[in-house]
C-alpha cells in the first residue's frame, strides 16, 4: 500500500461520549488509511464504533460526543485541528456523507432541488438558477428519470431508493474526493440495494473518488471494497485487502463473523456462532476486548491488551491478536467455513 497515494489517514482516533453512567469511549485508538480512488470498508456489528468513527472524521458527532485524541489527516491537514468554518468548507465539498435512513435524511419541507442546490450554492458560490440546473444534471447522473420534474418534488413523493439516489446526488454535487457511505443500503430492499451499490461503484469509476463504506453486511464488503477494517468494541481488530480478509482471515473475531453468517449462495451444515455478547462500554475487559468470547483465548489474552500489529513487511495487513505475536508459543486450532486450520505464533 505504500506505493499507493493515500488521501485520508486516521491515526489513533479516540472518541468519547458523556452519558449518565459516566464517560464512554466509543472509539478507542482507531487507525486506518484511505487510498486514493479506492473503497475501504469499515465493518462491524452494532456498538463496534464504526458509525462514530465516520462521524468523528467529519466532526458531526452529537453534542455529548467529543474526539479526545488522535488525528485525521486529509491531504496532510489534521481535520480535528481546523476551525469550524474551515471544516464547513470541507463538508459536502471535499468530503461528503450519505446515511442509512434515506426516508428521514432529507428535509421534508424543502424540494429535492432546493436541497441539492443548497450544497452547490454554498460551495460553488453559484446563483439560484445555475445551482438548480446543476441539480437537474446531478439527478440525471444518479439515474433518476425525468429529473426536471423530480427537482420540484418533495422527499415524501419519492420512494426509498429514489431518496437514496437524491442523497447521493447531493453528496456528489461538488465533486468530493471522499464519499463516506454510512450503511447506505441497510434500510433498502435487496433489489434496490443492488441498484444503489451498482450506482456508487459506477460513479466512483467515473469520478475517481475514494469511498469509505461503513456496513455490517459482509456481502456488501466483499462486493464493493478494496480494503477492509474490521472493528470490534471500538477498535480495529483486523485490516487487510478484501481478498485476504475473506480467503485468509486471521483474527478470531473475523473468523467468528464468517462462521456465523448464514449464506444464500452455498449450503452450510451448521452455523458456528460467537458465544456471549459484545462487552458493555462501561465494563471493557482489561485484556483483549474479544477474549471473553474468543475460542482460543489464553491467560495472556485476558490480562493484556494486544496492539494492532503489522504482519508481513508493509502495513497492508494489520491484526490485533496475541496469536500472531512473538509472545505466543505453540499452535492453535481455528475453524473457518467448516474446516480446521492451524495457526502458529
Amino acid at each position: 500500500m505504500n506505493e499507493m497515494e493515500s488521501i485520508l489517514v486516521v491515526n489513533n482516533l479516540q472518541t468519547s461520549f458523556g452519558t449518565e453512567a459516566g464517560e464512554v469511549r466509543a472509539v478507542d485508538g482507531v487507525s486506518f488509511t484511505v487510498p486514493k480512488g479506492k473503497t475501504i470498508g469499515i465493518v462491524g456489528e452494532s456498538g463496534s464504533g464504526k458509525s462514530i468513527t465516520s462521524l468523528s472524521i467529519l466532526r458531526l458527532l452529537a453534542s455529548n460526543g467529543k474526539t479526545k485524541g488522535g488525528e485525521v489527516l486529509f491531504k496532510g491537514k489534521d481535520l480535528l485541528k481546523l476551525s469550524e468554518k474551515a471544516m464547513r468548507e470541507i463538508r459536502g465539498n471535499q468530503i461528503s456523507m450519505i446515511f442509512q435512513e434515506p426516508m428521514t435524511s432529507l428535509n421534508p419541507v424543502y424540494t429535492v432541488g432546493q436541497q441539492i442546490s443548497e450544497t452547490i450554492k454554498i460551495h460553488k458560490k453559484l446563483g439560484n438558477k445555475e445551482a438548480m440546473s446543476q441539480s437537474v444534471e446531478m439527478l440525471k447522473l444518479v439515474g433518476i428519470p425525468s429529473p426536471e420534474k423530480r427537482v420540484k418534488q418533495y422527499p415524501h413523493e419519492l420512494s426509498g431508493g429514489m431518496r437514496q439516489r437524491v442523497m447521493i446526488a447531493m453528496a456528489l454535487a461538488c465533486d468530493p474526493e471522499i464519499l463516506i457511505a454510512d450503511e447506505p443500503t441497510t434500510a433498502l430492499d435487496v433489489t434496490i440495494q443492488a441498484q444503489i451499490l451498482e450506482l456508487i461503484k459506477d460513479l466512483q469509476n467515473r469520478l475517481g473518488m475514494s469511498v469509505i463504506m461503513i456496513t455490517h453486511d459482509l456481502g456488501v464488503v466483499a462486493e464493493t471494497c478494496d480494503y477492509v477494517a474490521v472493528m470490534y468494541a471500538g477498535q480495529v481488530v483486523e485490516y487487510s485487502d478484501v481478498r485476504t480478509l475473506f480467503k485468509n482471515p486471521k483474527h478470531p473475531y473475523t473468523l467468528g463473523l464468517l462462521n456465523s453468517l448464514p449464506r444464500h449462495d452455498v449450503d452450510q451444515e451448521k452455523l458456528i456462532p460467537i458465544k456471549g455478547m459484545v462487552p458493555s462500554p462501561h465494563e471493557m475487559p482489561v485484556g483483549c476486548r474479544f477474549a471473553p468470547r474468543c475460542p482460543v483465548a489464553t491467560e495472556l489474552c485476558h490480562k493484556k491488551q494486544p496492539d494492532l500489529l503489522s504482519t508481513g513487511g508493509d502495513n497492508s495487513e494489520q491484526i490485533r491478536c496475541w496469536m500472531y505475536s512473538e509472545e505466543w508459543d505453540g499452535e492453535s486450532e481455528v475453524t473457518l467455513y467448516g474446516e480446521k486450520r492451524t495457526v502458529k505464533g
Partner: protein
Amino acid sequence: MTKYIIRRLLQTIPVLLGVSILVFSLMFLIPGDPAQVMAGEGASEQTVENLREKLGLNDPAYVQYGRFLGNALQGDLGNSVRSGRPVMDEIQARFWITVEVAVYATILAVFIGLIAGIISAVRHYTLTDVSIMIIALFGLSMPNFWLGLLLIQWFALGNLPFGWDLPEILKMRPSGWGDSWRQIILPVITLGTGGAAIIARMTRSSMLEVIGQDYIRTARAKGVSERIVIYRHALKNALIPVVTVIGLEFGGFLGGAVLTETIFAINGMGRLTIDAIRQRDFPVVQGTVLVISLLFVIVNLLVDISYKFLNKRIDLN
C-alpha cells in the same frame, strides 16, 4: 388547494349548526323565565305573557330555533333587552376592540415565545435554558387577573416593591383602550404572558425534537452553517406544531379577554358579555357567544390551511 379550502368550509357547517343549537339553548339553560327576567321584577302577569307571546316563547322549541337561525343568517340577532338596540350593532362597536387586543397579545406571545423557545432549544441544558424555562413556568402558572392587578399596582399606580420610584417613561394608564400606547401595553402583557410561555415551551420541545432528526445531520454534513441549520432547516419543521398552538392561543385570547377587559375597563366584547350576563340580557349573550365561536372556527380553519404551506407531507386531499 382550493378544493381543500372549499371542503374545509363545508365541514364547518355542521360545527356552526351545533354551535347555534348550543347558543340557542342558552335561553333555556339559564335559570329563570326569560320573559319574566326581561319584563323585570315587578311586571304584571299579563305583561310577561304578552312579552312571551311577542318573543314567540310559546312556540315549540324547534320553531323558535328555526326562527333564531333564520334571523341569525340574515345578520339579525335580535335586540338588546337593556338598550333596545340591535345586538349586531352592540357587538360591532365592541368587536374590533377585542380583536385588536387579541392580535396585539398574539404578536407579543409569538414574538417572545418563539425567541425564548429557540434560544432555549439551541442552548439546551445550559443555565440560559433553565432560566428561560423557569420564567416560562411562572408565566404559565400566573392567573392573569392577578398579573393584571399587579401590573396596575406597579406601573399605573407606581407602587413598586422596595419603595422604588417608577420612571416617567414606564408610567402606564390603568384603564381604557386605544387612546395611547400607555393604555395598550399593560392589558396586552396581561393577556399575552400565558400564551408566550406556552409558545416558548412548545417551540423548545419541538425544536429539540427536530434538531435530533437525521435531516439536520444531513444539513450539517453539507457544510451548512449552524445559523442556517437552525433557522432554515430546523425552524420551519419545528413551527408546524407551534402554529396550532398559536391559533388556539389567539382563539383563547378572544374568549379569554373577558377578565383582562374587566380589569382594565376596556369596552370590548368580553365586557359586553359579562355585563349582558349580569343583566340577563339574553339576546346579547347569545350574540357574543355566537360571534366568538364563529371566530374560533375561522381561526382553526386558517391554522389548518397554514399547515399546507408549512408541511408538504400532509396530503390535504
